[in-house]
C-alpha cells in the first residue's frame, strides 16, 4: 500500500494529538487528581500510538506505548502524578514532537529515546528518583499495564471462565475501540458481536449489550470471550471490520483472569465507596456489576473536553490551494471593476443589472474566500502555555498564563507570521516583566505572577495584548541607557512622554536587561519584533506603571490580501490610500495653509496638522497644487498623530488586492505595494505611516 498519501494526514493528526496532549498535560499539572483529564490524555496517546504503528514508525509507537503504560497506572489510581512524572512525560512529548517533525521533513521518525523510555519504565516499576514514594504503585505486569482494568465478573461468570480455561478452551479478554469519527457506533459494535458470536461465546461485555445497543457507551467496549480461535487471528478479523480503530486481544490463563477481575473489583469498590455520599433514592437492585460501573473509560462522567469531541465536519485544505483561489478571485475582482466601468459607459440597463448582480456575487465570494483563510489565533496561542511553563521553571518563577480570546480569527498569512514576535514579547514579560518570587513577596504581591494574553477584534483590526503584573518599566533607566547609547539627548528625553520613552525599547540594539539571561540576550531585540509587526502593517505600543506591570499592545490588520482603499488622482497618476489610515477627506482653501517653523500646516479641528503634498513627495511631474485655489486633502492617521495629504482628485472607494512590487525593487518609502485597477493599470498603494514621523 502506498503510505505516502496517508502521510500528510498522519502528520496533521499527530500534530493535533501532540497539541492536545500538551494542553491537557498542562491542565493536569494544575489539577493532578482529575482522572478525567488523564483519560483524555490516555486516549490521545493511544490513538497516536495506533496511527504511528500503522504507518510503521516504530520508535514513535513504542515511546507512546511506554507513556500509555504510565498513564494507565495513573488513571487506574495506582500511581499519583508527581513532578518527576510530569517532567518525564513532557520530555516524552518533546521527543514525540521531534520525531513527528522529522517525519514532516521527510525523515523516518527514528530517534534515540532509550533514556526517556527507561525513565518511563522506571516510573511504571514505581521507582522514584531521589526519595521514597509514599504512594507506591501496585505492581503491574507488562501485559496488563497496557490493557484496561478488566470487567467485574460475578461468581457464576468467573467460574465459567475458570472452567473453560481448565478445559483448554481459549479465554480471551478483548478490548475494542471504534473510530472517533464513526457515525453509528452501535451498528459497528453489533458487527463485532456478530463476528465474535460466529466463532465462540461472549461471556460478559462492558458496557452491557443493552447499553451498547442504545449507544450508551463511548467508543470502547471490552468483553470476555470463549473461543477456539487464536487471539491474533481474532484481532485481525476485528480490526478488518470498517471503522474499528483498534482491538486488543489478550489470551487469559488462571493467573491473569484472577488478576483482571480482582483489579476490576478494587476499582469498582473505589467507585462504590464514593457512591454512598449520594443519597440513594431507590435501593440498588441485585446487579452489582451493572450498578457500580468499573473504572472503565468515562465511567466518571467527566465532560469529554477535547479528546473525543463530536466528529469534525471540516476538511483540511492545502494553504497553497487557497492562495490559488485567492489569486483567481483577485483576477475576478479586477475584471469586475472593469465591467463596472464599461457598464457605466455603455449605459444599457440589462448590462448594468447583470454587472450589478455579478458584483454582489463577487463580494460574497470574496467574503467567503477571506473567511476560509481565517484561522483562530488559538493555533498560535496554544503553544504558549507550555513555553511559559518551561521558561518560568528555568527562571524559578511562578507564573500563571491567562489566555483570553483564543477564538479570535485572523488571516492565515498574519497567523503564520505573528508567532515569533509574540514569543518574544511573552518571554520578555516572563523574564523581565515578572519579578523574582522574593521581590514579589517583598513588594507585597502574590507569589505567583500573572501574564495575560488577550486577543480581540476591534473594527478592521485585531488587537493582541500581553499584560503582566510585574515590576513595570523604569523610565529613568531607559532614559539613561538611551542617552548613554546616543539614541536621544538628555534634553530630548526630558521632553518625552512616558509612552515615547517606552517606545525607545523598540530602538535597534536596545536592551534593558541588566543581566543577559538564558531567555533573552540572544541578540534579538524588541526592534526585530517591531519591524516584523510593521511588516505585517501592524503596530505595537507599550504602557507601563512602575511597580504595577507592563502592557504590550499589538495591532494587526485582519487580512493582508484585500483592503478597502480610497483611489485618488495626482496628475496623470492614480494612487490607492488604505481606508484604515484615513480619518476623513475634505477641501481646503489656499489661504488656510500656514507656514509654521518652515512646515506647512492646515487648521484641523482644534489645532493645526502638517500638510504634505503627495505630488511633491512622489515627485509627480504633471501636477502642482500651488496653482489651485482649492485643494482636496486626505487626513491620515498614524497612532494618535494626524497629517493631511494634498491630492488632485478623489476617484472613489474600492476594494483592492494588494500585490508586492516585485523582488527587484528596493523598499520604496511611502509605497506599501501595488494593486491592479479595473482598466488593467497598476496603481501604487500609499503607505501613510511613512509620512508621519
Amino acid at each position, binding site marked *: 500500500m502506498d503510505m505516502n498519501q496517508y502521510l500528510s494526514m498522519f502528520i496533521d493528526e499527530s500534530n493535533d494529538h501532540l497539541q492536545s496532549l500538551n494542553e491537557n498535560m498542562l491542565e493536569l499539572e494544575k489539577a493532578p487528581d482529575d482522572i478525567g483529564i488523564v483519560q483524555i490524555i490516555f486516549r490521545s496517546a493511544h490513538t497516536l500510538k495506533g496511527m504511528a504503528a500503522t504507518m510503521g514508525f516504530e520508535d514513535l509507537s513504542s515511546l507512546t506505548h511506554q507513556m500509555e503504560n504510565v498513564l494507565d497506572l495513573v488513571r487506574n489510581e495506582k500511581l499519583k502524578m508527581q513532578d518527576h512524572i510530569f517532567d518525564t512525560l513532557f520530555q516524552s512529548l518533546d521527543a514525540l514532537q521531534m520525531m513527528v517533525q522529522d517525519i514532516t521533513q521527510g525523515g523516518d521518525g527514528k530517534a534515540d529515546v532509550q533514556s526517556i523510555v527507561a525513565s518511563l519504565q522506571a516510573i511504571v516499576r514505581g521507582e522514584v528518583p531521589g526519595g521514597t514514594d509514599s504512594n507506591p504503585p501496585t505492581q503491574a505486569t507488562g501485559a496488563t499495564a497496557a490493557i484496561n482494568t478488566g470487567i467485574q465478573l460475578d461468581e457464576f461468570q468467573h467460574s465459567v471462565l475458570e472452567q473453560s480455561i481448565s478445559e483448554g478452551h481459549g479465554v480471551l479478554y478483548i478490548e475494542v475501540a471504534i473510530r472517533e469519527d464513526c457515525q453509528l457506533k452501535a451498528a459497528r459494535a453489533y458487527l463485532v458481536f456478530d463476528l465474535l458470536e460466529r466463532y465462540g461465546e461472549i461471556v460478559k461485555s462492558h458496557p452491557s449489550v443493552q447499553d451498547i445497543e442504545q449507544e450508551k457507551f463511548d467508543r470502547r467496549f471490552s468483553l470476555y470471550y470463549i473461543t477456539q480461535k487464536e487471539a491474533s487471528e481474532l484481532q485481525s478479523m476485528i480490526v478488518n471490520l470498517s471503522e474499528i480503530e483498534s482491538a486488543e486481544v489478550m489470551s487469559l490463563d488462571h493467573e491473569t483472569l484472577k488478576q483482571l477481575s480482582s483489579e476490576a473489583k478494587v476499582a469498582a469498590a473505589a467507585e462504590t465507596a464514593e457512591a454512598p455520599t449520594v443519597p440513594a433514592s431507590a435501593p440498588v437492585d441485585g446487579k452489582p456489576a451493572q450498578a457500580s460501573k468499573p473504572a472503565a473509560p468515562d465511567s466518571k462522567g467527566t465532560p469529554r473536553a477535547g479528546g473525543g469531541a463530536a466528529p469534525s465536519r471540516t476538511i483540511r485544505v492545502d494553504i497553497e490551494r487557497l492562495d490559488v483561489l485567492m489569486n483567481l478571485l483577485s483576477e475576478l475582482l479586477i475584471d469586475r471593476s472593469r465591467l463596472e466601468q464599461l457598464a457605466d459607459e455603455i449605459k444599457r440597463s440589462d448590462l448594468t443589472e447583470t454587472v450589478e448582480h455579478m458584483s454582489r456575487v463577487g463580494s460574497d465570494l470574496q467574503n467567503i474566500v477571506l473567511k476560509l483563510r481565517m484561522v483562530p489565533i488559538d493555533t498560535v496561542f496554544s503553544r504558549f502555555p507550555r513555553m511559559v511553563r518551561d521558561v518560568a521553571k528555568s527562571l524559578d518563577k511562578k507564573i500563571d498564563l491567562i489566555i483570553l480570546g483564543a477564538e479570535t480569527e485572523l488571516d492565515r498569512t498574519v497567523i503564520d507570521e505573528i508567532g515569533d514576535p509574540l514569543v518574544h514579547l511573552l518571554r520578555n514579560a516572563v523574564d523581565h516583566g515578572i519579578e523574582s518570587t522574593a521581590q514579589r513577596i517583598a513588594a507585597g504581591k502574590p507569589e505567583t505572577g500573572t501574564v495575560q494574553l488577550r486577543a480581540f477584534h476591534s473594527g478592521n483590526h485585531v488587537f493582541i495584548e500581553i499584560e503582566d503584573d510585574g515590576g513595570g518599566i523604569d523610565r529613568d533607566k531607559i532614559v539613561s541607557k538611551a542617552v548613554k547609547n546616543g539614541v536621544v539627548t538628555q534634553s530630548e528625553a526630558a521632553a518625552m512622554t512616558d509612552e515615547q520613552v517606552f517606545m525607545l525599547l523598540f530602538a535597534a540594539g536596545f536592551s534593558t536587561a541588566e543581566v543577559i539571561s538564558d531567555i533573552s540576550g540572544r541578540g534579538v531585540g524588541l526592534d526585530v519584533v517591531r519591524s516584523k509587526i510593521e511588516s505585517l502593517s501592524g503596530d505595537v505600543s507599550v504602557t507601563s506603571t512602575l511597580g504595577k506591570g507592563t502592557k504590550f499592545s499589538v495591532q494587526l490588520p485582519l487580512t493582508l490580501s484585500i483592503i478597502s482603499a480610497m483611489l485618488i488622482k495626482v496628475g496623470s*497618476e492614480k494612487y490607492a490610500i488604505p481606508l484604515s489610515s484615513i480619518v476623513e477627506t475634505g477641501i481646503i482653501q489656499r489661504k488656510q495653509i500656514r507656514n509654521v517653523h518652515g512646515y506647512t500646516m492646515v487648521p484641523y479641528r482644534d489645532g493645526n496638522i502638517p500638510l504634505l503634498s503627495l505630488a511633491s513627495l512622489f515627485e509627480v511631474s504633471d501636477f502642482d497644487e500651488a496653482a489651485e485655489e482649492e485643494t482636496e486633502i486626505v487626513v491620515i492617521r498614524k497612532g494618535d498623530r494626524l497629517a493631511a495629504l494634498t491630492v488632485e482628485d478623489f476617484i472613489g472607494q474600492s476594494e483592492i488586492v494588494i500585490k508586492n512590487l516585485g523582488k527587484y525593487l528596493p523598499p520604496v518609502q511611502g509605497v506599501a505595494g501595488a494593486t491592479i485597477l479595473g482598466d488593467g493599470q*497598476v496603481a501604487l498603494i500609499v503607505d501613510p505611516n511613512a509620512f508621519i514621523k
Partner: protein
Amino acid sequence: MGEEMKVIVFKLGEEEYGIEVDKVQTIERMMPITRVPKTYSFVKGVINLRGVVIPVMDLRGRFGLPETEYTDHTRIIIVAVNEMEVGFIVDSANDVIDLNSDVIDSPPDVVGGIKAKYLHGVARLSEERLLVMLNLSEVLNRSEIIQLESLEG
C-alpha cells in the same frame, strides 16, 4: 564541442545582445508603465503582466547609454533570475538563434562603453556579426547599482 544553446537576440542601438532562452519568460510589446517614485533612474516603473506586478528597467539606462523614445519595435523582455522577475526595455527583439558555447570568448575590457562585468562574453557569429552575451545576475545586481547611483547623485 561545447554546449548548444538557444539565445534570444535583441538590439540596443546598433549593438546586438543575447540572453539564454531559459532565462526569458516572455517578450511583450510596450505597455503602460506605472511610475514608481524614488527608485533608480533607469527603473521606469511597474507593469501588470497578467495579474503579476513586475518592475521594468530601461536597459539603455542601466548600461549608461542615452535613452531614446520608444517605438513600435520597442519590446519588454521579461527575465527571471534568482526568483527576481524584471522586464528589460530594449530597442527591438526579433531573433532566436542556436549557439555553441565554443564561439563565446571572454569579454574584452570595454565593449561599446558597457562595463565588462555585465557581459558574459562575446559570441562571434560571423565576420561582421558579434553578439554580446549578458551576465544577467550582474545586470540585476543591486549593491553595485547603489554605488553607481550615489556617484551620479
